């Protein structure tokens, strides 16, 4: 594939508002624009290309802006006691509600695996001990032992609905924090559904996303295989997976994006809200001072305990 031949342009795109005629400068990866002068929602339609396919599906926003702001405020209030105090007091700044491009990946996995399966059995063994009268006696007890048998087999399964971000602005971990999206609400993409909202074009190449999805699919096979293993226990599970019937579709997911600035010298913390379910996700900055104080207190308690114990003896 000629994946990296189309580099995203850094220069701004100039469009003219079809309602009032004013010139608008647009970030190159945006699919929509709202005219600042007349509030008209413009949509850019372009022919699909290798790394900029036309989105196949969309999920519409369900969570309104007010609800998203409320959810984020609650979330910050509930954040860990170890979070930086400035962060807990900071007011979230709504940057935007955006349709985020991501790829939806499906495949069938055929795997070949090797593992050692532990099969338990019990054995009666004799042992000697001293009884209450101080005599040495021989007794028996049953012990559980494990017999290891090697197993080699094949496993075929579906890998369904792996979601990987196609936006450079939002990492896969950040997106995973607000997943899942209810895919039953998928709609066929039409320009009308993103009209009046911000919508991003994919900024990662399809190849890169495909590799990412592929990796997640192989991990998913691993966790399915763990549940598939017979026996009482297993070890040394190794597998080779061949993915077939792979399909990848560009989907626009609704996400509210917030920035929390708690320290002028640090970049703001990105918090996302799932625009369909209202689930909040983000990385809370942990205060090293608070953590070290807590560790100090715990250590002090242990020390006091040890000292008291030592004195008591």
């Amino acid at each position, binding site marked *: 594939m000629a994946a990296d031949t189309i580099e995203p342009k850094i220069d701004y795109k100039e469009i003219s508002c079809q*309602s009032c005629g004013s010139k608008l400068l647009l970030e190159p990866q945006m699919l929509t624009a709202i005219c600042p002068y007349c509030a008209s*929602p413009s*949509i850019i339609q372009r022919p699909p290309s290798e790394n900029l396919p036309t989105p196949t*599906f969309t999920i519409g926003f369900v969570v309104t802006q007010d609800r998203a702001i409320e959810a984020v405020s609650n979330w910050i209030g509930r954040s860990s006691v170890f979070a930086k105090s400035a962060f807990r007091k900071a007011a979230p700044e709504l940057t935007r509600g955006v349709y985020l491009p991501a790829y939806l990946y499906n495949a*069938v996995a055929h795997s070949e695996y090797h593992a050692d399966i532990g099969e338990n059995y019990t054995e009666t063994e004799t042992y000697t001990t001293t009884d209450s009268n101080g005599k040495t006696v021989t007794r028996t007890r049953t012990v559980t032992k494990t017999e290891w048998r090697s197993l080699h087999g094949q496993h075929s399964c579906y890998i369904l609905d792996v979601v990987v971000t196609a936006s450079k602005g939002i990492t896969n971990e950040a997106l995973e924090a607000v997943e899942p999206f209810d895919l039953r609400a*998928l*709609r066929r993409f*039409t320009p009308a559904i993103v009209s009046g909202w911000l919508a991003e074009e994919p900024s990662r190449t399809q190849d890169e996303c495909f590799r990412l999805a592929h990796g997640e699919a192989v991990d998913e096979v691993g966790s399915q295989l763990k549940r598939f293993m017979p*026996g009482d226990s297993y070890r040394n599970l190794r597998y080779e997976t061949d993915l077939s019937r792979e399909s990848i579709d560009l989907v626009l997911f609704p996400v509210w994006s917030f920035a929390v600035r708690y320290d002028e010298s640090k970049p703001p913390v990105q918090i996302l809200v799932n625009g369909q379910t209202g689930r909040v996700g983000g990385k809370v900055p942990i205060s090293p001072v608070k953590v070290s104080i807590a560790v100090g207190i715990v250590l002090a308690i242990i020390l006091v305990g040890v000292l008291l114990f030592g004195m008591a003896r």
Partner: protein
Amino acid sequence: MSDPDQSTIQAELVHPDCSACGSPLENGDLRCAICGKSAPARRESASTKEVVKILRCTGCGAAVAYDPKKQAPSCSFCDSVVEIETLEDPMEQTGGYLPFTVTPEEAKAQLQGWLSSLGWFRPSDLSSTARVQELKPLWWVAWVFDADARVSWAADSNHGSRRSPWAPHAGATQMVFDDILASASKGLSAAEVDVLASGYQLETAKPAPEGAENATIEQFDVQRSQARKHVAQALNAISHARVEQTEVPGTRFRNLKVSLVLQNLVTHRLSFPAYVMAYRYKGQLYRLVISGQDKRLLSGNAPYSVAKIVGVCAVLAVIVLIVLMATSLS
């Protein structure tokens, strides 16, 4: 490229098959329900050059924007809403009725014959005094499916065991599912369906009910997504049972795990004829179900004769007592 108008018409008339796994897509599916592959669009809206536009309301000409409260793009002036192709999850109806070939008279005669064939523990006067209260023709509903599946399994079995009583085994096999019935009936029990399922001629299905009057006609009362779940569960259960019977070596097994990958899963919805007969014996109501196409297939319950059972138990108890006494004396 074919003519765009023609391809639109075709896509709406013919339900295409999933290009990945061959299972038919139903009208209103955005993706294949089995493997998740996206369905081809009904209308191809790809533009050939980059254009900037504002979508206008067809009613009043104002700009259209997506509204989360309405879950649809709508016009803020005249409130009209733009329809978008979404996943449809309809309540689906039967695709055909199998006609009755057994007459009510034959069914009644079969009931009498069955009652007299039940054996000694039943009341002696059962077949002479049981009165058929009601004989109701019924079309019950079920999904019928065909599929090819690659089934992989792993289990512990006593075959090849050494110190532990269990040894691990694994395998993969190709299975064909042909005209498998999964009941959607609320009226018939699973046991009754098991008995009836084998005796139907599926190719006799007609578009309308035939062969009985005043019949009760069951409806499918679950949505398509739910129906697919039922079919998937049935497939899993059947492959599990087949692996148990034919694949796992040895005589005992545990921890059987099965994983399926399907090809060409085709599901039909059909209505099946049966007679449900209620009969009364000494004031109690009993029920019997007979297939509407094969009168030998029937499932039902009948009273036991309490007097006879008590009598036998008493005789057995006396014998045991005598034996015990005899052994303790000697």
